[in-house]
């Protein structure tokens, strides 16, 4: 076999995906389901829906916070997270002698519709797809590496496949799918047809996947992507008078700072200070295309309302930009339900690639085992 020959590339194509074809397909299927996990939750759990029969305006995070305090008096809020307009706002809380919970709060009526103490479907799919439920050892998970290595498998299979498939661009003009000439012909045509029409999707998935791999290596080696703000100084603390940070006024002040810092700012996630030397972290969006909902962030000191750190796309370096555009591209969330639906369909198609590839190989091997790849 000559290096660089068509046969070489064909073998390489097989070696990229055949040894891991089941794992690859599993990662693709779980990722495809995860794309629609919010919508599946909406369908299966009425308590997760943001019904608005009275056509009320959306309530602010401060109003939702007050409503939570009134309805679940022992709740100490750690995070408020706004989701799609048709879903409840998730309010993460701790309570005395109870496990941490997520309150499902209707963003229009401010009613607490569910107290979820267990694992959510959204969370489960994310863990299953992201790291196959492998445990985390502080900074790394073997499962996370396994899954992100699939990005290299995909990229390798795509490049080698395009080299093997001569004049593949013809598939755009003359798509061929033989349905009645035997299974092998069908698998072959389907495999090629799906691949060629999904090149753009495979490139996005593998590039974002490679970013997740890079991110995993950075986590593992504790290479920070951001310069973290120092804790609130002892000098500020010495002047801090007693007050609870679980207060609508303090939250309101932090939100006002973010609104004056950014234009057209829509807060999407607020993390409460974990201790008294910690900050309110307000994250949101100005609607920049492709950037995720947390691309604009600031830290607010709850004792003097000073802003300690600001993050926004115009000040990000290349890796920081990638970290904020990777998720919308990988999950297909950048244009709402429509882009998610497209991602779902192409995710399903991608899931079939290693299966049809394996079936073709298997048929050849069973008939002529000695000529196996």
């Amino acid at each position: 076999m000559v290096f660089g020959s068509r046969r070489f590339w064909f073998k390489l194509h097989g070696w990229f995906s055949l040894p891991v074809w089941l794992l690859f397909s599993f990662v693709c299927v779980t990722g495809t389901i995860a794309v629609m996990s919010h919508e599946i939750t909406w369908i299966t759990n009425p308590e997760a829906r943001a019904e608005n029969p009275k056509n009320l305006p959306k309530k602010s995070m401060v109003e939702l916070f007050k409503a939570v305090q009134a309805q679940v008096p022992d709740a100490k809020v750690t995070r408020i997270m706004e989701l799609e307009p048709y879903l409840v706002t998730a309010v993460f809380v701790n309570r005395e002698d109870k496990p941490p919970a997520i309150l499902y709060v209707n963003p229009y009526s401010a009613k607490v519709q569910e107290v979820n103490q267990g694992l959510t479907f959204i969370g489960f799919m994310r863990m299953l797809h992201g790291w196959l439920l492998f445990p985390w050892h502080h900074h790394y998970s073997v499962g996370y590496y396994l899954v992100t290595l699939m990005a290299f498998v995909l990229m390798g299979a795509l490049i080698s496949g395009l080299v093997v498939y001569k004049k593949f661009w013809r598939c755009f003009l003359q798509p061929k799918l033989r349905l009645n000439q035997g299974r092998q012909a069908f698998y072959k045509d389907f495999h090629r047809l799906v691949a060629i029409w999904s090149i753009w999707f495979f490139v996005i998935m593998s590039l974002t996947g490679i970013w997740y791999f890079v991110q995993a290596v950075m986590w593992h080696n504790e290479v920070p992507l951001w310069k973290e703000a120092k804790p609130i100084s002892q000098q500020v603390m010495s002047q801090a008078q007693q007050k609870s940070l679980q207060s609508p006024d303090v939250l309101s002040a932090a939100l006002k700072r973010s609104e004056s810092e950014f234009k057209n700012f829509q807060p999407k996630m607020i993390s409460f200070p974990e201790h008294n030397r910690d900050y309110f972290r307000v994250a949101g969006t100005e609607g920049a295309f492709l950037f995720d909902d947390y691309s604009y962030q600031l830290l607010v000191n709850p004792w003097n309302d000073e802003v300690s750190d600001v993050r926004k796309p115009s000040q990000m370096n290349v890796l920081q930009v990638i970290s904020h555009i990777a998720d919308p591209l990988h999950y297909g969330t950048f244009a709402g339900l429509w882009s998610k639906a497209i991602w779902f369909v192409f995710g399903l198609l991608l899931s079939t690639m290693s299966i049809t590839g394996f079936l073709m190989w298997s048929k050849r091997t069973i008939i002529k085992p000695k000529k196996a790849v």
Partner: protein
Amino acid sequence: MKVFWLRYRFWINGFILLLPFWFLYQALTPPPLESKWAKKQSGEFSAEVRPMDKEPPYLHDGKREKDFSVIFGDSCANKVKQAYLRVATSAPNLPDDDSGIVHGNTSIQHAHVPFPDVIKTDDRLWLTIQDWQGRIIQLSWVLEK
């Protein structure tokens, strides 16, 4: 045998997919909590500590750390302005940095405690609390092996 291997070798990766079931089972049946260290009291403040696991300290930013729960008693958690859990031979001062800071918003809180490379015989685990009046309260435990 060779034919068998050639035919079935690419199914081996399927065994990886059994592992999520095992890890799910493990996650649903967590090991029992470590036992709490004896309750310590000083004035209106009392606390117990509990290591999060049996493991030795892990490396974080090149330094050794071990995670602890801090269980404040007698509703004293909201009287705490700031608190730190640290290993030292004598009562430590309030630090400028936040390593070992006790965090959480209920009676059960957590701390990532910096551990020295070598534990000296007179090293103790110190909980240093500052209350809202600026007073310092310190509780300490003998380090278990």
